[in-house]
């Protein structure tokens, strides 16, 4: 009924005693996520929202067997936290941290891939399988269990679309925020391929924005591999060239990465692209024939 995370996911929180880490741990636990432990160097013996704190990820793995980790440490320590999680054998790592130097992510991405692990982020809101596991900073209550898989580069814009889907009676199998940085772990193709393979996902929503060519590459992939009905939205039709629009990756350079180019590629792949986030549910229903 989902991709990547479900009710059996055992979550470790890296940076659990920090302001963000402790706040969101409490939120995740309240949602029903199984947070089994946390890590803060020197934090052994503490407890956050019922989760025991360890000094190292290796210790936490030995004692509590997590199979996923979510990272809330500051940007300069985030790459090290990802290496620590992957080296301890954790197969899925979510990095919420914003502002990680781009060059640091080059070896991180390659290393994670070589180890056979999956990374989500950095600079992302995380992911949620409604009713089962919230591994991120999104407001849980706007989501409802269902059959629509959603993947997005944005945070609040994702909430906007999820909310519209829920209000239109379209629940979600899993909603994934892949993040707005130039180098990210899981991209559109990875998430969409997983949704295509998930028997309980019936339709897919893709929310992109200006910058890079990830949406265009995804459109090519979709054309060849995806049979499920799709709808989407691209933010930044009015964005000027050469200006970074909040997200580090959201910049049109040399005429590449425009909203118009992405919309064209997506429509050519059979995706119904809305001109407003609120119109996504209606277009998706149209694509689903319901």
């Amino acid at each position, binding site marked *: 009924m989902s991709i990547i995370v479900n009710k059996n996911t055992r979550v470790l929180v890296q940076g659990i005693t920090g302001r963000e880490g402790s706040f969101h741990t409490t939120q995740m636990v309240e949602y029903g996520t199984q947070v089994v432990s946390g890590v803060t160097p020197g934090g052994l013996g503490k407890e956050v929202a019922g989760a025991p704190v360890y000094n190292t990820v290796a210790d936490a793995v030995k004692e509590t067997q997590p199979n996923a980790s979510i990272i809330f440490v500051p940007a300069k320590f985030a790459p090290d936290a990802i290496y620590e999680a992957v080296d301890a054998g954790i197969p899925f790592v979510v990095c919420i941290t914003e*502002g990680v130097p781009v060059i640091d992510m080059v070896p991180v991405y390659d290393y994670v891939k070589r180890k056979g692990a999956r990374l989500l982020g950095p600079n992302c809101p995380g992911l949620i399988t409604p009713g089962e596991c919230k591994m991120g900073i999104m407001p849980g209550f706007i989501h409802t269990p269902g059959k629509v898989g959603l993947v997005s580069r944005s945070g609040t814009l994702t909430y906007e679309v999820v909310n519209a889907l829920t209000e239109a009676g379209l629940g979600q199998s899993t909603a994934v925020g892949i993040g707005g940085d130039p*180098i990210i772990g899981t991209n559109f193709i990875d998430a969409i391929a997983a949704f295509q393979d998930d028997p309980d996902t019936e339709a897919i929503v893709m929310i992109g924005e200006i910058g*890079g060519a990830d949406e265009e590459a995804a459109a090519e992939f979709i054309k060849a591999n995806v049979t499920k009905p799709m709808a989407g*939205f691209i933010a930044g*039709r009015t964005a*000027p060239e050469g200006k*970074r629009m909040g997200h580090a990756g959201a910049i049109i350079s040399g005429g590449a990465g425009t909203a118009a180019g992405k919309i064209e590629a997506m429509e050519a792949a059979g995706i119904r692209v809305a001109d407003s986030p609120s119109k996504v549910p209606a277009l998706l229903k149209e694509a689903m024939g319901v």
Partner: protein
Amino acid sequence: MNIHEYQAAEILHRHGVPVNPGKVASTPEEAAAIAAEFGTIVAVKAQVHSGGRGKAGGIKLAKSPEEAAAAAKAILGMDIRGHIVNKVLIAKGASIAAEYYLGVILDRDNRQILVMASAEGGVDIEEVARVSPEKIVKINADPYLGFHPYQARQLAFALGIAADKVNGFAAIAQNLYKAYVAEDATLTEINPLILTGDGAWMALDSKVSFDDNALFRHPGHEELRDLAEENETELDARRSGISFVKLDGTIGCIVNGAGLAMATMDAVKLHGGEPANFLDVGGGASASQVAKAFGLVTADPNVEAILINIFGGITRGDVVAQGIREALTQVNVKAPIVVRLSGTNAEEGRTILAEAGLTAVTSMDEAAAAVVRAARGA
């Protein structure tokens, strides 16, 4: 973060790239003095954070100090794609036997660093990429080991560079890569990289941009920032943790989240208006952040109406509404305001706003339509 050509040349020189000697002038007199000192033909080059300097007339050759002064006089104060020229680089003339392009960029598709080169130097490389992409040779650096000497030689041989010049080219390509990594750049580029008449390699024009995320480990880079090249409001916003980009329209936008902020601008346009700015207040949307945002938006005399679009997530709608109410007591806002509040505790938030005399709507489209009407005075 962008810097000027002369600053980029200094950085690349530090990393072992042979660059064309040059000095910066702010007046025609200084330009003449530098030209006299060099005693050669010089190039007088506009120093602005913009491409297309050549086409705009921002680069001129001068055979004498008098000509250098005249060229500087013509170029200083020039507007190149919205950038006013305050400085010119006076560079020694060089005899050009061959011109190449050499650049290091981030390859987002492969998530690696890419070194690219072309024998089509001295022209717009984006144009070459569009028209004849086969003329650009690309090699990805190893994510851990970097850019190997053999890879640099591969580039050189692929461009048809003479065997006795290959090692010189390869050394420059490696140093350009090393500069990219050491300086946390998003671009290091030489265009053109030339072979001089007497067979030496030389970078004739250098370009370097830095990764904003990595500025914390390069305290010296901040000093290279040219405040005249940056929008003061945008800088001011950044210091408060707000992302702000000035645009040309009349509808001021205050939004939480970058993606939603872009979608809000698009909605304004869709309903017949033009956004005056991109503004992401960040996650918290506290009273002080909102007050700061009001200040930024109202500082623009073109703003005729303001749209506040908040989707309450972890941030509660009632807290944001309190913030807006408090902010309005701190900043005098004359333009009509339309608030869209949705998500966590949105209803409580709308009640608070109603008490403050503001109407809040629930849908973004409704809000966009309303703010466009308000701007027209309807």
